[in-house]
């Protein structure tokens, strides 16, 4: 077991996966991804649904055989030394991958044995994990009696059982309340700070990724389109502020947007998004329209921007200015919001 250059734990090179589509044609889900993950860092893979992040991770964790390329975990090739590589990986899938009619302890013991653990070592380690996920007092209760947050904690516990060097967490906060989400994020940070664990984290929630990640890769259409620390990513888009002008249901023409771009110094981009708000009977009850303006030093640009809007016959209902963040980076790189 060894690390690669500069303490690299995971080396992914030209990883690609092609599936057969329903029409019989090949569909490239991942088109040659390469990335490095360093020992002890939290590395996030960010991308919208269908971008290829789960397929990429499935190949790295040995669930899917790549069509092309390879990944090395601690020096072990996932394609040629799969069993050795898998010993170093802990997996926390997005769904609650537990047996509901077994107790928390039985689940942990079962999966522990699948990692060749047994006897006193397994008992001790299960105790430690139960303590870590704060479920010692519920260890003999069946999973089916647990709340969503508790199940999520056991789900994480199973991934930690064999003390993996790399923990892969696939959208671990999906479908849980804010309190439990906070608990999961704190757990990830504790794993890094207390145990020096390397974490590969996927999410489509910008705030989460921004909060916990040391480095981030943005994946879209099966390709890594940007990577680095948050600061490095923001630098890539020129540290522009985003100004949101709410315009309600008003129709905004391309000519009006062009007038905004022309009239105010520092404005690099102005786009209009219109979202229909539907009621219970699926009828449109309201329209929420927003003009998003990218501008250097946005607060300074705000007064002339409002002036220009008035001159362009745009009625602004409210204004919001945001500093550059991950969402801005994503929007800049992909031309669409992550939730799209």
């Amino acid at each position, binding site marked *: 077991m060894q690390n690669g250059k500069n303490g690299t734990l995971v080396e992914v090179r030209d990883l690609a996966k092609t599936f057969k589509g329903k029409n019989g044609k090949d569909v490239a889900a991942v088109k040659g991804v390469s990335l490095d993950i360093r020992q002890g860092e939290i590395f996030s893979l960010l991308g919208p649904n269908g971008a290829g992040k789960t397929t990429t991770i499935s190949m790295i964790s040995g669930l899917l055989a790549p069509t092309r390329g390879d990944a090395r975990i601690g020096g072990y090739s996932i394609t040629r030394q799969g*069993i050795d590589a898998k010993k170093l990986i802990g997996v926390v899938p997005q769904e609650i*991958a537990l*047996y509901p*009619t*077994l107790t928390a302890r039985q689940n942990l013991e*079962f*999966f522990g044995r*699948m990692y060749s653990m047994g006897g006193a070592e397994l008992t001790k380690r299960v105790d430690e994990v139960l303590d870590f996920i704060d479920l010692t007092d519920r260890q003999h209760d069946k999973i089916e009696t647990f709340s969503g947050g508790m199940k999520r904690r056991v789900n994480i516990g199973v991934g930690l059982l064999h003390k993996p060097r790399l923990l892969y967490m696939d959208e671990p906060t999906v479908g849980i309340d804010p309190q439990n989400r906070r608990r999961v994020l704190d757990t990830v940070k504790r794993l890094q700070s207390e145990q020096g664990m390397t974490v590969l984290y996927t999410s489509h929630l910008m705030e989460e990724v921004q909060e916990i990640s040391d480095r981030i890769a943005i994946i879209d259409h099966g390709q890594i389109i940007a990577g680095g620390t948050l600061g490095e990513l923001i630098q890539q888009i020129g540290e522009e502020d985003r100004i949101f002008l709410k315009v309600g249901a008003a129709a905004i023409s391309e000519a009006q947007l062009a007038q905004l771009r022309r009239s105010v110094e520092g404005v690099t981009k102005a786009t209009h998004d219109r979202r229909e708000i539907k009621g219970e009977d699926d009828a449109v009850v309201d329209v929420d329209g927003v003009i998003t303006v990218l501008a250097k030093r946005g607060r300074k640009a705000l007064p002339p921007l409002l002036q220009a809007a008035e001159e362009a016959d745009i009625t602004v209902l409210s204004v919001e200015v945001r500093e550059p963040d991950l969402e801005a980076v994503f929007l800049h790189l992909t031309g669409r919001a992550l939730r799209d």
Partner: protein
Amino acid sequence: MSKILNIAWKELYITYTDRSLLLVMIVTPLALATIIGSAFSGMVGGGGNDIPVQNIPTAIVNLDAPTEFNGQTFSMGQTLVDLFTPSGDAAQDADNVLLALTDAAILSDAEAARAGVDDGTYSAAIIIPANFSQSLTVTQDNLSLNVAPVEVYTSRAAPVSASIIKAVTENIVSQFVTGGVTVAATIGELVERAQEDVGFGLQFAVGSANWQPDFAPAFTPDSQPITISQQTVSRQVATFNPLVAFGAAQALFFMIFTAIQSANSLLYERRDGTLQRLIASPTSRLTILLGKLLGALANCVVQVALLFFFLNIVGIVLSGRMQIIWGDNLLLVAAVIFAGSLAACGIGAVVTAIARTPEQVNIVGGLIAMFFGLFSGAFFDLRSLGDLAILGRATPNYWAVDAFTQLSLGQTAITTNLLVLLVIGAVTFVIGLGLFERRLNV
């Protein structure tokens, strides 16, 4: 290996700690078998547990040509026929248990006899070949016996009665043959000694000059009566416990469900994500598959074993006496349980491997289980199916139920049943294992 056992144990534990599953797997078949078995028992046996089997309609066709010996005519075929027909001597007939056991009809046409079996007139037809007596005759030049086989053509729809007639006929013929073999061995020994001992050889040569070259069939009814004991016929052969047939059929019917559902759990695990978790562990895919299939096999074996145990208790309660309704050879009973479970699991694996979703498995599996159940007598007497009853032979249930029935009657000639079950199991297991591999592509 420990990982295979870990997965199999998990399967077993999850199954047998689920109360609703136990209700379906154990309580329901037990209740059904008890109700059906009791109904038949009350109807036929007057409330007892065992049904005395009697008056089995049997056709006998004697094609045997009598053989001449020392001026006398011997007809072993007729000897055999006489055992099944009244002699006219009331005292002698009272001792002949075969008269009560069978209702024999003497026919001259073998094809007519077979047709009678096929149309349900007879449960079995005994067809004695033309050279039967001749084949039981030993000559000085040829001391080996090549006995012409007596054909017992049996009804698929009445396996119990048919197997009784088959067993009785084989028993009688074997006693004919034993006599022939004894004579042959004695003469053979004399010839051998004559060749080694010159003095004895001279005496033997002088003496044998006066002998006839052929030896009559060694068995004669006068000197060596047939020994089908009253006890054997009444206690083991001629009593039929409906709990055995219906209980075994119900157990097998529900076991097919268990086998298919156990295999189906792989698709459910894929849907729930636990399969992905197993594949992500340092465990080969073959290990995961073998663990799952071993778990399915264990589920089936335990289910049938438990059902048999409880059915036996029901049998004891109904009859009011201590007994093992499955017969004395529990080792063979266990072997059939294992072989039947293996076949069922193999079929479950194939069904699961072919289907795309767990729901598809439930539908297809249900249809298969119903088909198997119908054609193994789980719901009604197979005779009511007529010619269609032959379809039962394509099901593992038929072979297993038939084997359990025979074992309960004290017969152990179930090699064919075991072989069929093991072949079905082995073939479907291998096919299922191969097809299952693609189900692990998550």
